[in-house]
């Protein structure tokens, strides 16, 4: 459980966030929405530990949040989330290698084989099987974000923070990765906090949608009044992690979307020349 208690964030004279209090229950999927420059990303940085609140406290399961990013909180950014110099497999293995060897940060022998096994499973899970030896620059944008998810999930973080993770993808690919995101959240023990500009995305994925807004937004007031929570909406009927019917989201087009195609999606590797068994 994440408890945010009366948090303020100021940069010099500029107040960005004020009086933010919020409790995020375990395994929730919280979508943060709001206009540009209203402090959503700043709030995510506070949760991540990249920034510290000027006032107020944030606790994770009762303990104060560590003041720098750590392995209990995974993150996927819109860009630059994966390492360009590592292959797909190398990217996913990196977290394991950090944990295993303090000085060399490399795995060898049976420990490496076990980790490779685990990484390959996760890579297959996010739909990148067969691309293990490719470098990120050889992947499409959607595949890079899938890789970023796998890379974060191998650490089994308590909290997954997403900063407009799908904002740069085109709609077809975004719909496919939404299905993946929903499945991952449903099947793993994750609390997800996602910043998004896309209202539809917020309501499609979230269990709860929270809006940030500046109550006073005249140019002469902007400096001294920060944004705060203006709406806190629980999705109805409630979605609960672990209780979603796998079929319900594997093939559930959004209201205005074209009907979901069965079979190979446009973001998937090309079908084999012999044709597809399905």
């Amino acid at each position, binding site marked *: 459980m994440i408890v945010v208690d009366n948090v303020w964030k100021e940069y010099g004279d500029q107040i960005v966030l004020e009086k933010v209090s919020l409790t995020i229950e375990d395994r929730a999927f919280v979508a943060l929405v709001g206009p540009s420059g209203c402090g959503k990303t700043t709030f995510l940085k506070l949760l991540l530990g990249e920034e510290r609140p000027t006032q107020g406290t944030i606790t994770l399961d009762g303990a104060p949040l560590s003041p720098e990013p750590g*392995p209990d909180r995974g*993150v996927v950014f819109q860009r630059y989330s*994966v*390492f360009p110099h590592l292959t797909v497999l190398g990217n996913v293995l*990196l977290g394991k290698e*950090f944990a295993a060897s303090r000085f060399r*940060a490399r795995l060898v022998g049976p420990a490496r084989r076990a980790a490779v096994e685990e990484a390959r499973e996760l890579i297959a899970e996010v739909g990148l099987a067969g691309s293990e030896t490719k*470098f990120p620059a050889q992947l499409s944008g959607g595949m890079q974000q899938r890789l970023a998810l796998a890379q*974060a999930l191998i650490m089994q973080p308590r909290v997954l923070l997403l900063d407009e993770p799908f904002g740069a993808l085109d709609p077809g690919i975004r719909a496919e990765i939404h299905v993946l995101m929903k499945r991952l959240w449903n099947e793993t023990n994750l609390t997800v906090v996602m910043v998004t500009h896309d209202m539809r995305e917020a309501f499609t994925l979230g269990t709860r949608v929270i809006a940030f807004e500046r109550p006073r937004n005249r140019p002469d007031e902007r400096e001294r009044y920060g944004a705060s929570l203006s709406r806190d909406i629980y999705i109805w009927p409630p979605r609960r992690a672990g209780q979603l019917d796998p079929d319900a989201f594997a093939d559930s087009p959004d209201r205005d979307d074209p009907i979901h195609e069965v079979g190979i999606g446009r973001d998937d590797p090309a079908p084999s020349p012999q044709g597809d068994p399905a």
Partner: protein
Amino acid sequence: MRLINLKPSRTNQLILALLPFVALLVAYALGSAARLADNPADKLLPALTSLADAVNRMAFVPDPRTGEYLLWSDTWASLGRLFSALGISTLIALVFGMIVGMFPYARALLAPFFAAVSMVPPLALLPILFIVMGLGETSKITLIVIGVAPIMIRDLALKVMELPREQTVKAETLGGNSWQIAIRVVLPQVLPRLITCLRLQLGPAWLFLIAAEAISADSGLGYRIFLVRRYLSMDVIFPYVIWITLLAVLANVLLDLLRIRVFPWSDLGKAS
């Protein structure tokens, strides 16, 4: 069609690339012929045949006094100095560039110092180096290092700081400590840039090498050029200059090939 949209074919590209070289050669031959017609003893623009003679004399006939083939012994002497200096500079730049780029405290301590040091004209330090370290190899190598390393450090530190903030944060969320992030995330990404940086410093490195050899040496390409200058031996100087240029061009190309070979991913981003 607009000029900006006209693109040469591959053959034309090759012809165009060769054109300036051929033009230079023709201009030289014409100038040389004109001067020699006026005065057959002219030494300023020797005929191409006398250049070839000089190359033969320097590269393939042993020197009567020492029994060495001068072009090769000069080349080895110069390349030895150049490569040891560049090796030392690269190592220094890698270590300090990463430290300055990664750690805010080290940056606060060292960045202004390196910025100031890189402004010192190295040739102005040459007399001090000769006095303190003697006239041997040490002072020449030190001159190149002083001339090249501070700029490489600053360049590399900037490259480290240009790595997206997101990458560092991501590595932290994967549990990496500062050392692990340095060797697994930052180091592999700056190595290709280090090679590029080294390529750009080849020019200045040669400059300092020739300058040091011109003043005090008993072998080396720069030494030879400044020695035969006394006899107005343009027939030796021209081939030496061309040889030095060739060596520099070759080193430049080889370093780039090395980068693409060792870090294949560093070329992928450019294409897309």
